[in-house]
């Protein structure tokens, strides 16, 4: 069975490909290039196409199924139109599947379930990365504010931190917000 993954995110499509290969689907192809999408798909003639929901080329795919004489017609999108739970799960995860030929329903279900969990894993990865980035930014801001206070008030590093923490508690704010105010104030006094 040939599966094509249409995804502009190379990392996500790689994660998806690995998952499918682990599950025993050996013929998996990834298309990241949106130009000439139709040509690529005609050339590979897949049984299943997986595409991320946010991909604007979804409309192009829909047309292909309606007019194309070259590609076999899809029998269904998603697993089954009555299977709303699967449809919702895949839409929530962000994956959409087009089944191009009459495949066994159970087979498609397993592919889709796998994709949903992989898509979810990817978005968790993305969230973790974003969180790590913002944690790092916050730490940098606090360090900078600490430096300003140490210099201006001749404080030790520990006392500078305590001072900001005290202000944060009094004003019911986060330390990073206090640190930002310190930096802003320092820039104004320059």
């Amino acid at each position, binding site marked *: 069975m040939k599966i094509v993954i249409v995804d502009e995110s190379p990392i996500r499509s790689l994660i998806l490909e690995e998952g499918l290969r682990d599950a025993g689907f050996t013929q998996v192809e990834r298309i990241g290039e949106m130009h000439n999408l139709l040509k690529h798909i005609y050339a590979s003639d897949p049984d299943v196409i997986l595409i991320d929901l946010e*991909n*604007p080329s*979804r409309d192009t795919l829909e*047309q292909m199924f309606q007019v194309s004489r070259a590609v076999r017609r899809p029998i269904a999108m998603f697993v089954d139109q009555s299977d709303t739970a699967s449809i919702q799960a895949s839409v929530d995860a962000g994956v959409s599947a087009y089944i191009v030929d009459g495949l066994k329903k159970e087979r498609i279900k397993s592919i889709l379930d796998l994709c949903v969990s992989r898509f979810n894993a990817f978005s968790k990865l993305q969230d973790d990365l974003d969180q790590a980035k913002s944690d790092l930014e916050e730490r940098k801001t606090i360090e900078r504010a600490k430096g300003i206070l140490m210099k201006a008030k001749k404080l030790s590093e520990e006392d500078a931190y305590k001072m900001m923490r005290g202000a944060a508690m009094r004003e019911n704010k986060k330390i990073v917000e206090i640190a930002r105010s310190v930096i802003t104030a320092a820039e104004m006094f320059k």
Partner: protein
Amino acid sequence: MTGEAHVKIGFIPLVDAAALLIAAHKGFAKAEGLDIELIREASWANIRDKLAIGRFDAAHLLAPMAVASTLGLGHVRVPLVAPMNLAMNGNAIAVSTALYAELAAEGEVAHPAQTARALAKLVARRRAEGREPLTFGMTFPFSMHNYQLRYWMAEGGVDPDEDLRLIVLPPPYMVENLARGQLDGFCVGAPWSSVAVDAGVGVILHFGCEIFACAPEKVLALRESFADDDHSLVAALIRALDRGAAFVDEPQNLGEVSQILSRPEYVGVDAEIIRRVLTGHLRVKASDERSDANYLIIGRDGAMRPDPRQAEWIYAQMLRWGQTRHSPEMADRAKSVLRPDLFDAAIDCAHIQREIGAFAGPSFGGRSYADYLAGFDIGQRL
């Protein structure tokens, strides 16, 4: 109403979503007790699917797509209703500068009948020379863009299914493909034709309203079950959007509306381009401008009131191009998508009867489908 009703609405970043975007932004929805959450989408397929499974309560949708979804064409059958039109017209047909030069060499290019005949001559010549067929882009098979292109070409004698290629492309990709020579022309909503003209790669050949006089372009679409569940909520939504449209239509608000729509979370293009679209004053090629007050109609002259005859007309276009087969039941289902009863329950406005009309060919009003379709040389018949 106690508390605010939360309504999730999907939209595509296009100027013809103006009534919806302004209703949410200017607080008209809030005044009706609605808390509208707008979700910007990248494809019509996505909007349709999220509406179908209930992730959206309502959507900015292509009018023919609401009919197609209800009839189960090309996809899962999900009955939708459209209690109001969001826009009439607003598309344009643009061609590459190279194709424009070839068409102009054939003679006058002012009227669609002239350009269609010129196109037919070019198609025949290209075939005789063994060249690749021309390729035109549009945004979705069930769209006014598709029907405008096909109607225009066929009037000149070009069979859009045999003589050239019609492909679907996301609107933001059109201009680039025109520049690379992958496309020879396209029909798309604003502002993409203007973008092609500004970039010097395309010429606007015709406004959509020069092909069809007043074609329902986008509707507010709801699941039928949702619409029938809570009539007061639907009425509140209609009133809010009607106020949004009235605000858009007021000439003194033009600057403010253009600014709001240009925001990145809404349409995200230059306010000046949006202004041109809203006034119907467009640059059509490097040294030429053209105006048409009907280029895009948001709310004026009762345009928002849905008319089931518009859905019948859309169904007739679907029959002509073989997108569906005819049956009286299907025709009735199609007609039932546009719901003036829901509109009238919310708003009291004049019932202006308008023929959709076309630049050539038989008129649809009062005829049977068989009669209407028999009036064309190209296309399916009953």
